[in-house]
């Protein structure tokens, strides 16, 4: 039977909201369900509102959902904050701590109040068991497998000693029993275990880190920053076992400098950061383009400007990623669109970097970086990994590192190769790498470096297209909103609108196919999580055509409903006007 339900857990940071969500996620995934999560939490370690949303389904999921089916409130503040998103058609369920929370009257939702705080304090004598009590409650109410929950709890708390482990087992059981004793089930939600194999539960950050290792990345340097740090933490644990090195640098400038040094030495290297760190790396990015060094830089975007909202999502570093730096700097900018895409995107990023011998900036964001999703276990035999083009013996005679070629790509030596020595430099240079300020040389070298971008201008790897082949409205989003847009496109078409979506995986340079798509529709909507419409500006500049912006800067991702609403609005106004003309 088909089942698709959205849980949202709200409470205060430090109360175990996030771990409650993580355990629920893993339990649903191990029951064979598809999951898609979203988390939003304060930048402080304790205090401030925390929320974790888990969508579980028997079908493949594209977004975190629009409306909440089951809202779980740890306290009154969580209720006040999230109740507005709970569905009000009589089917929605509110599970709340009745010792701290009082719902309004006449809500038209199904209420399950349990004095969870009191139980934690009086019966279990440990306030921190609140989140496990809630898990027990959810287990009984909605069929979250009890023994799977027990197993996850033993994995998570086993190391903390028997007393703590037993306390949590007891909390799980008491939560379960409190429903048995005191409540009668009145809602229609129930999760059934499904058959499924070869699936993993990964965050965007984890998927990217492992994809990079698969691509052959063996040197990572970084500096801790939210929401990118998980990449470094996973690599610090695993990369040494691949014979690789992780260096915690003194700052992001040093991190990217080390990456360039390692890449110059022939090792695939990368760093990951967020906006403030990427700002600091800018000068080195120019050097990487000028000295033609293949490397990968990940930007897990967060809400800016300046320190902004470090734990909230945004897509506002696009123009920085494309244009940052003095001079005309050729580089590739990719945007990851899903957790699964993060794994394969990492491999493509390194392939593009070595193919074009230039830096590749990969845009992710807090929404994607830190959300869990079920993904099919990658088939590693199907993944092509490219290596740098080294010179042949013949080419090593009178070797010139920056030799003019048709593609712009010159064979690259690395230290240790006899006969291949050359000076890498950020100063304008001739084919041999020697300083040259000659007018002709500079224009030829500029053209050579930019020509390499032509190697990734078109192809099926560069975009995804959804919806009917002929459409009135085209949606061109980028990055992590792919699933949300795809879901909205399906909903819109079901409602009779003719809508298609084009989702580029490389946002600089823009794939040739994007132009064809834009010309094929009557109007284009560009949804993006920034204030000014950064991608819309790029499209206008590139195609000399206007687009309709849909911008949101709340620190939260789009929901499918928001995109659908815009489609309806555009359909009402723009299309009808077009017909009049």
């Amino acid at each position: 039977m088909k089942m698709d339900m959205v849980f949202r857990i709200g409470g205060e940071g430090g109360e175990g909201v996030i771990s409650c969500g993580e355990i629920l996620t893993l339990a649903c995934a191990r029951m064979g369900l598809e999951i898609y999560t979203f988390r939003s939490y304060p930048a402080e370690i304790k205090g401030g509102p925390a929320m974790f949303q888990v969508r579980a389904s028997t079908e493949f999921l594209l977004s975190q959902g629009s409306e909440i089916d089951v809202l779980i409130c740890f306290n009154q503040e969580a209720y006040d904050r999230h109740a507005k998103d709970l569905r009000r058609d009589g089917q929605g369920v509110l599970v709340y701590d009745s010792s701290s929370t009082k719902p309004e009257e006449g809500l038209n939702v199904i209420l399950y109040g349990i004095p969870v705080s009191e139980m934690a304090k009086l019966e279990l004598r440990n306030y921190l068991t609140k989140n496990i009590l809630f898990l027990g409650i959810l287990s009984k109410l909605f069929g979250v497998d009890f023994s799977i929950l027990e197993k996850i709890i033993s994995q998570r708390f086993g190391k903390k000693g028997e007393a703590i482990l037993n306390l949590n087992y007891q909390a799980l059981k008491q939560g379960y029993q409190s429903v048995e004793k005191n409540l009668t089930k009145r809602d229609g939600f129930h999760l059934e275990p499904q058959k499924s194999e070869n699936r993993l539960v990964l965050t965007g950050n984890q998927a990217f880190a492992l994809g990079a290792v698969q691509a052959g990345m063996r040197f990572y340097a970084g500096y801790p920053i939210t929401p990118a740090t998980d990449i470094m933490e996973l690599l610090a644990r695993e990369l040494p076992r691949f014979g690789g090195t992780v260096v915690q640098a003194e700052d992001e400038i040093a991190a990217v400098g080390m990456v360039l040094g390692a890449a110059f030495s022939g090792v695939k290297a990368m760093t990951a950061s967020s906006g403030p760190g990427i700002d600091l790396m800018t000068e080195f990015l120019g050097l990487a383009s000028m000295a033609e060094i293949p490397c990968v830089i990940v930007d897990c975007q967060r809400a800016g400007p300046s320190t902004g909202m470090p734990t909230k999502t945004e897509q506002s570093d696009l123009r920085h990623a494309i244009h940052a730096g003095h001079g005309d700097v050729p580089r590739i900018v990719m945007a990851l669109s899903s957790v699964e895409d993060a794994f394969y995107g990492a491999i493509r990023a390194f392939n593009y970097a070595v193919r074009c011998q230039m830096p590749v900036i990969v845009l992710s964001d807090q929404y994607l970086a830190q959300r869990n999703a079920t993904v099919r276990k990658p088939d590693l035999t199907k993944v092509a990994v490219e290596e740098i083009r080294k010179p042949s013996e013949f080419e090593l005679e009178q070797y010139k590192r920056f030799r003019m070629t048709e593609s712009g790509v010159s064979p690259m030596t690395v230290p240790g190769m006899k006969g291949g020595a050359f000076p890498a430099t950020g100063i304008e240079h001739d084919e041999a790498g020697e300083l040259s300020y000659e007018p002709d040389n500079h224009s030829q070298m500029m053209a050579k470096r930019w020509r390499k971008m032509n190697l990734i201008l078109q192809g099926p790897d560069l975009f995804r297209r959804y919806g009917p082949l002929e459409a009135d409205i085209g949606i061109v989003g980028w990055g992590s909103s792919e699933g949300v847009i795809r879901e909205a496109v399906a909903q819109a078409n079901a409602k009779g609108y003719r809508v298609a979506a084009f989702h580029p995986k490389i946002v600089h340079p823009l794939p040739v196919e994007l132009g064809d798509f834009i010309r094929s529709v009557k109007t284009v909507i560009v949804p993006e999580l920034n204030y000014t419409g950064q991608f819309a500006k790029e499209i206008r500049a590139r195609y000399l055509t206007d687009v309709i912006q849909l911008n949101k800067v709340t620190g939260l991702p789009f929901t499918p409903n928001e995109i659908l609403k815009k489609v309806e609005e555009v359909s009402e106004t723009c299309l009808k006007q077009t017909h009049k003309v």
Partner: protein
Amino acid sequence: MPETDAQGLTAKDYKTDVHPVWCPGCGDFGVLTCIYRMLATKQVPPENLVVVAGIGCSGRLSGYVNSYGFHTIHGRVLPVATGIKTANSNLEVIAVGGDGDAYSIGAGHIPHAARRNIDVCYIVMDNEVYGLTKGQSSATAPQGLAAGTTPYGQLDEPLNPVAMAIAYDIGFVARGFSAKPKELTDLIVQGVEHKGFALIEVLSPCTTFHDTYKPISQRIRFLGPEHDPTDRVKAFQLSLERETIPIGVIYKRERSAFHERSEELQKQAIGKRGKATVEEVLSQFQ
């Protein structure tokens, strides 16, 4: 030292055809000559050598050595050198730059190169001014120095690079003088042989904007065997000396280099949890 099949290389073999941009009499010529001599002494195969340079007059040096070179950006010699040496520990990595590079814009990298003990010899050509931008005072310029951006005299006190280096516990700290090539060559040989981070502060005067040959020549004194460089307190006292300028190895402490610790960490991780495959790591997330 990497194994070598290059035998009988002379200082000339390490020279490129490019003529240095430096002014006549520039101290950097002396430093370059000493680097050539060190390379000949140690018979470093050019393909295994990387010279990493900063920005400024001294930064051009990487283009004058017949080897792999990396002319980086201002102040960032040490991070790049760290990446190169860590990625391939068989390479001989020498870092060069000026006082602006090392002690101003890039000063924040020095304590961390020291903490890691990267196996890189860093030769800093200190002329107390920004030569390439035509003679503004630098972080090591004497207080009161009148120059382009300090026409009424430098307000700030000069930094003491040797005291700073000892405070950071850099494993090999020496001071040389570009006009004393025999002694300087010897210091560079020792710095390169030192396993770990070596900082050689070289007094390398700028004849065009701030000619200090005479006062330096009058005040230098060569350290003899009576100085024990392994005594950190004595080394620190020596670094604070004002009447004379001590030349030689001032401080020394042996310990494992970063790439050695990193390789050891890999061995331990593999010993404990086995060699990894992506397949296996992915399965942790089932």
